[in-house]
Each structure stands twice: as C-alpha cells, then as structure tokens.
C-alpha cells in the first residue's frame, strides 16, 4: 500500500528547547492513524512540520510523496487541518469565515457546507466572537472537511465537544475515511484513539516509542479499579493474576488490572461494596506501567 505520510529521522529544536528528536513513522493511504502522547510530547511539532508551518532542524517528511518544505503549497491543497486550539477572525460571521476559508481551495460547495454545519449543529449566522470554545471547534471541523481533503490532520480535535458532538464528529471522520481519506489523529486520550484508529504511534518527550496495531494495545491495556467497602476489611483481599500497584486502606482498595476482566469481578464479588470505579488509566500511567517508566521501551 502507498504511504501518504513518510517521516524520516525528523528533528526539530526551538533554539535549545527540544521539539522532537529523530522521529520516524509512516501512515498508509486510507488508514486512520492515531498519534498519541502526553501534552508537550511533540505531536503538534510533528504536525506543524508536515504543514510547513515550521521548518525541521534535520531529517525530512514527505506527504503524498512530496517534500514538506519544498512543496508545502501543493501538499496543503489536499490537506484538511484542525488545530488543537482554534482561533478565527472575531468580527466575521461563521458563514463568512467558512466562505473565506473555502475561497483558498476554489469553488465553495454550499451544499456540503450546509450538510456539515447541520451534522455538527453549527449556527452559520453567528459572530465568531460570540461562539463558545466548543462551537469554535465545530467551525474548525467544518472548515477542515469542507474541501474533501484526501489527508485529514486532526490535532487534539475533541476538546470542548460534548459526547454527542464527539460521536457525530467521529461519524464524519469515518465517513471521509470510507470515501478514501487518510487520517492522522493526534490525541492524549487513549480511549478515543482506540475507538477510531487502526494503528497508533506513541510519542513521548519528543521521541517515538513505538508504532502498534490497536488490537494488540487493547489486549494489554490496563484498567484502573477502585473499590470502596461498606465495612472495614482488615485482611488484604486476594486479587486475580494481572493486578498490580495495589493501594489499600481498611475501607478502600485500588489497583491496576490487566487481563481477563471477568476474573477481576469474580474476586471482587465477595465484598460488600459501597462504590466501584473502573477507569481507563491516563497516558502517563500507561507509560509508567506498560512501557516500564522513564525510558519507555
């Protein structure tokens, strides 16, 4: 399969500050690739180089087989980009802004514009200045998808969107993907990447840790389980295999669990519970337990 994005030994320093170091990966045509890492890991730096908003210190990146620095203009014609923080001209109305945005790609497809606005429940008549953060994000989504790009780059796109809108937005992305669009989806929230992506690249402190199939990540993913007992439990309860990082007080028990979730429930069942919380661990915790701390792999 053809690669839409090819990144080789890409390095970017901002003066002396580290952006990314020696990052390499590629994204195949038609895939939804998750790009995941904690804040400040270098996701946006990588993306901004792909768009030629910033220049690499060394290494290179190609999109559609073209060089990001030399052919940025041609590349961007077929890229839809949604930045993590959206800012627009405050005194424009939403429709005005979307038309301005579309004018750089040629003709404005009003039918598509209305369709996208309808799906995202975006009011076209309002002033940008009066929009909430979530609504500005919707403007970003519509302007990013309006020209039917064949590469969609999303940088932490879901911030500010309520769960329903996230659903709709993911729906749109899947729709575009079925049409053939390739998607680079950057996020620091693992579950949303798991929902959408087929492969993920994990980046931390400017370095690529590894690229994995999403299936293998799900099998090995940790759950965070926290229990509150109705009565004090004096003895340490017996936990199934796969439990780790156990923290205990007479009325509480918390542990990370990796393995068959049924086994975990079996061992919990004998307690009289006041409350039980099962969470996805955040990225930092995953890095700590899954990748063995500071130096990752």
């Amino acid at each position, binding site marked *: 399969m053809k690669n839409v994005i090819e990144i080789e030994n890409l390095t970017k320093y901002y003066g002396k500050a580290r952006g990314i170091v020696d990052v390499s990966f590629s994204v195949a045509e038609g895939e939804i690739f998750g790009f995941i890492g904690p804040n400040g890991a270098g996701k946006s730096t990588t993306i*901004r180089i792909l768009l030629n*908003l910033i220049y690499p210190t060394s290494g290179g990146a190609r999109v559609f087989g073209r060089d990001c620095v030399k052919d940025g*203009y041609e590349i*961007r014609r077929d*890229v839809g980009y949604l*930045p993590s923080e959206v800012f627009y001209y405050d005194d424009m109305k939403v429709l005005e802004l979307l038309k*301005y945005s579309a004018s*750089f790609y040629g003709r404005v497809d009003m039918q598509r514009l209305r369709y996208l606005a309808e799906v995202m429940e975006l009011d076209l008549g309002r002033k940008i200045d009066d929009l909430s953060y979530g609504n500005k994000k919707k403007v970003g989504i519509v302007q990013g998808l309006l020209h039917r790009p064949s590469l969609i780059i999303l940088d932490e796109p879901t911030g500010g969107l309520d769960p329903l809108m996230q659903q709709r937005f993911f729906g749109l992305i899947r729709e575009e993907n079925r049409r053939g669009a390739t998607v680079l989806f950057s996020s620091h929230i693992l579950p949303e990447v798991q929902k959408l992506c087929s492969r993920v690249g994990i980046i931390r402190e400017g370095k690529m840790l590894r690229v994995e199939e999403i299936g293998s990540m799900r099998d090995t993913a940790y759950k965070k389980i926290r229990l509150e007992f109705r009565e004090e439990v004096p003895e340490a309860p017996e936990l199934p295999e796969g439990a780790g990082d156990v923290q205990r007080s007479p009325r509480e028990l918390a542990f990370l669990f990796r393995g068959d979730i049924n086994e975990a429930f079996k061992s919990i069942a004998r307690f009289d519970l006041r409350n039980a919380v099962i969470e996805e661990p955040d990225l930092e915790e995953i890095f700590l337990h899954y990748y063995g701390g500071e130096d990752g792999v």
Partner: protein
Amino acid sequence: MNIFRQELKMHVRPLLFYTLGMLAAFYAFLLLYDSIAADAALVDAVLANFPKEFKAAFGFADVSLSDLGGYLSFLFAYIVLIGAVFGMKTGISVLSEEGRTRTSDFLLSKPLRRGRVASEKLLALCLLLAVQNVLFFALALPGYLSKAGEEPNLKLFVLMSFSVFMVQLFFAGIGLFLSVLPRRLKAVMPVTLAVVFLFYIVELINESVLDKTLSYLTPFSYFKASELLSRAAYDGRYLAADLAVFFLFTALAFWIYEKKDIHA
C-alpha cells in the same frame, strides 16, 4: 486576491480614523491662520525673539508664519507626523496581525505560498496609504483654496500633501521589517510610537545642528515643506534614499517571513 480584500476590510476603520485626524489637524491650524495673518507684523516680531533652536525644533525657523506658504510648511510637519504613525502602524500590523489574533494556523495551512500572502498584504498596505493621501488631498484642497486667494500655488500644495505618502513608505518598510523579527509581536502601538518619535527626535536634533549627513537618517528631513517652498520639487537624493529604505526593508521582511517558524 482574497487576502488583499480581507486586509482592506480590516484596516478601513483605522484608515478613516487617521485621515479624519489629519484633516482635523489641518483645518484647526487653518482656522488660526486668519488671525495670525491679520497681525502679521506683530507675529513676526514676537517670533523673532524666540531662540533659534526652539523655532527649528517646531519647524518654523526659516519661514514666515504670516505667509500662507510658510504657515503650511509649519502645519504640514504635524500632518506628516500623523501620517507617519498610520504608515508605521499599518506596516507593523499587516504581517503580524495573524500572530496576534492567532489566525496564522488558519491562514498558512491553506494552499498558499508565504510570498503570496506577504505580497497581497503589501499591496493592501500600499493601497491603504494611497487612498489615505488621495482622501486627505481632496478634502484639504478646498481649505487651502479658501485661504490662497487669487493665485493658489497648486503645485506646492500637491508636493506638500503627497510628501505624507513618501514618508509613510519609509515607515511602512521599517514596520514590515520590525513586525517579522519577534516570534509574536503584541504591542503594535508602543513600537509604532517609539520608532516614529525616535526618527522625529533625530529630525529635531538635525534641525538644531544643521548637519547635512545627519538628515539622511530621518525621513522627516527628506520632504521638508520649508525646502519644498524654495525648491518646488522633491530632492532626488532624498527621494532615492526614501525609496531605497522602503524597498530594502520590505525585501528583508519578505525574506524573513518566508523562513520563519509559525507558532501556534
């Protein structure tokens, strides 16, 4: 040409505001002219007692205020100053406003070459300045004609009016250049005023020491109305210096803008 149009839209209000300011200053000074001309002998006698350095600094060292030409050359120093502030402010704004409103990502992730973005912005800047000068000239002319009597010196008035444009070009170039240097320029007005007044102070010093070479340092010396009175034309060397500064700094600004990292 959509960026060009967008720029014009964004700057039309300051354009009108500053043009009104220039016209207000022009007509306010003109109102005072009648009373000064009526007591010409007295005014000249009073001014004769002022220290030369003081008169130089305020632009009426070698002209007679009771004569309309001399009075205009005095008042145009202030019109040029207001124009210079607008030229500098707009020059600083056009390439840096995306950074301030944080819309750089929006604009530069579009299929645009940076050179194209900068060119359209430069074109808008030049048109804004030209429009301001034409507006000012057209609306100030009736005022001049009403005072000029039988034989108005139209050529002189044209030269004085459009010296505003020439000085603006100088500051627009400097403004473009300064605006692309920092990562994100936030304080447009403070930088504008600091730079314009710096050049104005150089001019004041220059007037006092009367050093010819120093006069190349500041555009306020290039098109001095008192010189236009006697010469009735722009000085070719100063004109060349003015345009050279504009083209050089604009080219530098374009080059830096092309190579610059755009931060979110």
